[in-house]
């Protein structure tokens, strides 16, 4: 080790008891961006280790869900699908759903499974759920590539509207991170969360217009439906890729507001309780 350069810019840390709400301190999170990068990369590398199917799981799950939906909702219950072949209709929705569900499921348990890091190292705690949700992009990309194969098979080609996809993906990401922050922080205190998450995700799946179109609802209910941010994302995806008549309007506005609200409240709640993580995790 070499001697410390004398003229190093001095950093001063003040350590005091903290009470009440804390600042988000995104600047610090930015300083630790390489840690976020490495944690994301670790998550991706490790997620499907020692599984037989490996990353195929990211494709199998939405594909099988689509099959089941197509059979029971599409074929048997004759649920309408906005004029799109039902399998394509439901799978297009399942792609962003994969991002959301995978992000939520993994980030909810992230803090508890990293308890050793929390107890031994200082770093911005936000980087753990953040990197986990980022790692879920792998699942998303895999599921999305299958969609790109499926669309031509049904005679659909991406149109100009597809340029809006990144914004919709960002919305799904914000929603996933918001929910993930809430759940991961709660899970440190209440381990019940671990049991509640699979159930919650399943309920949310059916509360989102994946197996059915939101066009079943009339206004103003459809706009109100946007309070579930994933409703806006899913309908936006169908519009951008399949050209359904769900062009983003008031609903996606409501969805965006709801997603941002989830993220902001989640982040502040997380920051408020994170100071006790090392003591109770």
């Amino acid at each position: 080790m070499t001697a410390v350069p004398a003229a190093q810019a001095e950093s001063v840390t003040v350590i005091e008891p903290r009470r009440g709400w804390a600042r988000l301190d995104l600047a610090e999170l930015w300083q630790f961006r390489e840690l976020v990068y490495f944690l994301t990369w670790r998550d991706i590398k490790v997620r499907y280790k020692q599984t037989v199917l490996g990353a195929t799981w990211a494709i199998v799950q939405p594909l099988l869900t689509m099959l089941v939906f197509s059979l029971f909702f599409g074929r048997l219950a004759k649920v309408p699908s906005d004029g799109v072949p039902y399998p394509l209709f439901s799978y297009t929705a399942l792609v962003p759903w994969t991002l959301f569900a995978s992000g939520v499921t993994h980030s909810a348990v992230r803090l508890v499974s990293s308890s050793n890091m929390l107890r031994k190292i200082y770093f911005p705690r936000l980087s753990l759920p953040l990197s986990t949700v980022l790692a879920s992009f792998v699942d998303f990309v895999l599921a999305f590539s299958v969609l790109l194969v499926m669309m031509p098979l049904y005679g659909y080609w991406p149109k100009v509207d597809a340029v809006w996809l990144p914004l919709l993906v960002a919305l799904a990401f914000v929603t996933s991170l918001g929910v993930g922050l809430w759940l991961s922080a709660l899970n440190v205190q209440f381990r019940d969360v671990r049991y509640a998450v699979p159930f919650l995700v399943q309920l949310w799946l059916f509360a989102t217009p994946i197996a059915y179109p939101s066009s079943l609802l009339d206004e103003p209910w459809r706009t109100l439906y946007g309070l579930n941010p994933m409703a806006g994302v899913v309908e936006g995806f169908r519009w951008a890729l399949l050209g359904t008549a769900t062009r983003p309007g008031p609903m996606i506005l409501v969805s965006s507001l709801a997603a941002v609200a989830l993220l902001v409240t989640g982040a502040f709640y997380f920051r408020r309780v994170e100071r006790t993580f090392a003591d109770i995790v």
Partner: protein
Amino acid sequence: MTDGAIEIRGLGKRYRLGARAEPVRDLRDRLSRAVRSPVARLKAVFAGHSTIVSDEHIWALRDVSLDVAPGEVVGLVGRNGAGKTTLLKILSRITDPTTGRAVIHGRVASLLEVGTGFHPELTGRENVYLNGAILGMGREEIKRKFDEIVAFAEVERFLDTQVKHYSSGMYLRLAFAVAAHLEPEILLVDEVLAVGDASFQRRCLGKMNDVATSGRTVLFVSHNMEAVQRLCRRTVWLDEGRVERDGPTDEVVSAYLRQWSGQRRSAYVGEAAAEGRRAVLELAELLDASGERSSHLNLGEPFMLRMRWRHRERITGASYFVRVFDGRDRMIFSSNTHATDVVVADAGVHQMECRIEASVLMPGDYTVTFGCFVRPRTEVERVDSAIAFEVLPLAFDETVQLHAGPALVAVPTQWRRTVGELVAPLAK
């Protein structure tokens, strides 16, 4: 610079008893408690408590004030639970203090454990990058030091092997090597040298010596008095969360050792854990050759260490260890259940005994540390110096002899007259 590197004023940390002892850990526990008092639990939840807690508190750290000058290397000594680790955790911002304030001038790195964040499924190379990032190194910095780190760890050939296939020695070397290449202005180190074999410990100490003489400010927690004496000019002795003594190392260490050697105990009874733990050592005792609880053994006397562990949850891959230290806190030997077929993963109570068939301990004071870990070396729980005993200068039987001179060990030996040809002459 007139400022101190670290200024600590009235620092205190209070833990709520039960806050960690009570958390809801597994379903069975949850159900039974839910059945017993769901209303009370829900009330507690809505009142903002994570659990139904008692109002009892414990101060792990109390009104600690310290000034550390830039470039000073300060040892922190004290018994288990004296607050040493808590102090480092507060200074490294892992946990918040309850009272007081600390100001730190300079970039801090803390080393409370080597290998934090190592992932068994990743290769050595990958873990170096990951661990480096976790410890606060940038990617460029790691890249620059990579060869040096690998050379120090002596794992060149296994760089692309998953860490789970490493021996625990290789694992430790690599983990320490990453940490040893941190270049902070202020380094907080906790007991990382208490692991590994003798030659590894020597190398670690050597590296620590480099750090100590490089002008960095170091706070060094250790049970190893030799290391403290070697590295630190000044030492702070913490006892029950307070500064008991602060001064030149030799003075403080000898005062500490004097007080410590007056306390022998043949049994340890675990307290209600202040910080809810996955495994708790409820009881540990030392039995002499006649099966009696004792804090005195004769030279060469076989003895037995008995322990009762309670696991609050299932701990896959759990093993127990015992380590025996001499009066200067040098590890004399250790043993663990890992290599045996003893399985102690389940939640609940496990009782275990470790029989030391032939003791080689010389007369003097010893302590026994008990612990539980998960392969390869994640420590679940450890109780330092749970038992303290003395070996008396009285031979247990005729197989051991007391020497006038200073031998390191007293080995039971047997002599016998033989006849006929001795050993074959040395082959050329």
